[in-house]
């Protein structure tokens, strides 16, 4: 038994004809940790999860879960994992309890055991009162919680959570975070994807930043932020500052002692400096001398947002995607998000 419950080497997934959704990534997940996969929509997070959960086949590279090659014995992998997809997969015509019972049946859980687990899970995700109502009447938050509890029916060693809080309001989000932490404390290894920096920062012991199917950076949240080694001053310019504003500003700022780096980013520049607060007056004066008109100046201690910006040159935008759904026998689905 190796220490790594997930081991991925040079994994590639190409969707026909030529979309390289995952483009040669390597990483590992240690037993017992919460591992975060942080990136914007389309970064390849879900594709990676689908390869690891045996839902799709890889194009190249190797992927091992609990020491088992994903193509060698997918059935063995399915026995030890739980998976909550980004889009909840619950049956709206069944009640919450019936959804859980079906799941228990599919995982061959003996009946008395199953009822005990179901009761415990319903309590843990706070769905006891709604348990015998049709899942179609649930709110977005309740649906997400039911889906999460379904993934936990088999008591998986390894739990995959694909954007567990996307579409949730802050209260539900905090509840899900809390629950994920408790699961992890109870010994479950968790592989989590998210497009929220704060979520990765709070939950993950280690994380990868992914973009365009590649891993841009890897480490603990603290080490990644420490890599920036500086505070960040983000500047954007007024439109009448002219096309040269950016280069003029860069030239002016790089002459200030203490500024380590100036980087072009979406909508302006990012200035990296230790003890930036004391440098702000000099920055303002230098820009004034260079006749650059500033629209906005923000000073932050490094966050994962800055890490993302440093490695990709872009700000990470969060997009909520809810594809339209069809229900041919009369739509009775009510999806109030939150």
């Amino acid at each position, binding site marked *: 038994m190796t220490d790594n419950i997930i081991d991925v080497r040079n994994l590639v997934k190409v969707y026909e004809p030529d979309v390289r959704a995952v483009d040669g990534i390597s990483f590992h997940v240690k037993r017992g940790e919460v591992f975060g996969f942080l990136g914007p929509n389309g970064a390849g997070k879900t594709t990676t999860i*689908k390869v690891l*959960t*045996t*839902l*799709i*086949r890889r194009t190249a590279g190797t992927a091992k879960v609990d020491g088992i090659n994903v193509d060698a014995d997918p*059935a063995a992998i*399915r*026995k030890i*994992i739980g*998976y909550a*997809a980004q*889009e*909840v*997969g*619950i*049956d*709206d*015509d*069944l009640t919450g309890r*019936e959804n859980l019972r*079906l*799941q228990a*049946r*599919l*995982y*061959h859980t003996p009946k008395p055991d199953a009822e005990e687990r179901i009761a415990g899970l319903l309590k843990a995700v706070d769905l006891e009162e709604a348990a015998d109502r*049709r899942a179609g009447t649930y709110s977005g938050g309740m649906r997400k919680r039911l889906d999460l509890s*379904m993934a936990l029916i*088999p008591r998986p060693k390894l739990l995959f959570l694909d954007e567990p809080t996307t579409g949730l309001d802050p209260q539900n989000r905090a509840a899900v975070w809390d629950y994920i932490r408790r699961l992890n404390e109870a010994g479950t290894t968790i592989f989590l994807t998210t497009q929220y920096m704060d979520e990765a920062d709070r939950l993950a012991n280690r994380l990868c930043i992914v973009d365009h199917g590649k891993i841009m950076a890897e480490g603990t949240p603290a080490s990644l932020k420490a890599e920036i080694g500086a505070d960040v001053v983000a500047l954007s310019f007024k439109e009448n500052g002219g096309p040269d504003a950016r280069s003029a500003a860069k030239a002016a700022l790089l002459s200030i002692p203490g500024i380590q780096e100036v980087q072009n980013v979406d909508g302006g520049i990012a200035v990296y400096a230790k003890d930036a607060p004391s440098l702000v007056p000099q920055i303002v004066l230098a820009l004034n001398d260079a006749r650059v008109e500033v629209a906005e100046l923000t000073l932050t201690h490094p966050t994962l947002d800055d890490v993302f910006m440093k490695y990709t040159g872009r700000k990470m935008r969060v997009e909520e995607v809810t594809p339209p*759904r*069809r*229900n*041919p*026998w*009369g739509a009775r689905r009510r999806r109030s998000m939150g």
Partner: protein
Amino acid sequence: MTAGEFLGEVTGIAGRWIRKTLRRPPFLFFSLVQPIVWFVLFTQAFSSISNIQTPKPGGGFITFADITGTSSYLTFFSAAVIIQTVLASAMQSGVGFVTDMESGFLDKLKVAPIHRSSILIGKLLSDGARILLQTFVILLLAVALGVGVATGAAGLIFLFALALSFGIAWSGISTFIALATRNSESTLMISILTTFPLLFLSTAVMPKPLLPDWVQTVAVYNPISYIADALHRLIITGWDWAVIGGAFLVILVVGAVTLSATTAMFRRAVSG
């Protein structure tokens, strides 16, 4: 994978579909009312068919009763209503897979440590249960309207067996289309177009000698004719093992083709 586990998966999945049907009262209501509508409409609109006579080569006439064994179009048409109802159920069987693909429920089934064929078998079993219920309603109505079953209680068992096995074999068509198109509208459209004309190009709604020549030719190659002939024997004229056995053989062949095509398509759909 033990047999007990497999059975648990299949019944769990079949139970889910049956429960879903019961939870949609309008759907359940119309699947039961539909055969009644067919029965009443057709037997009323075409009741005079039984008065049709065709000239006999040596003089005189052959009557409807001579050809079919009954002078009641109602009795003759019972078989067509059973077939039509089975076809209608089979045609929308595939739609459930499309909704499961769209909702993400299929992914949930696919990551579970189940034998993947239980997804397909469970669904087909639930369709079979609905077909049995519908056939029961039709027979109840037919008997209430004065239709007698020539082969009696034993014949009823064969009648249910024919409806069930034919329904499951035919479900393979819409399931195949559903898995190939992944779209519920196309599934319904294509399966209606491939199925409905076959009913009218068979011996189900009209005795063979009364069909135009070219339709008679088509009817010989139309599997539905064989089911219709067997049902006619069971209801009207009595045991005829050659015809009944022939119908089961046809169902076996149709089922082998549709279900192996569906299984292949299903493998493709679940392997991604």
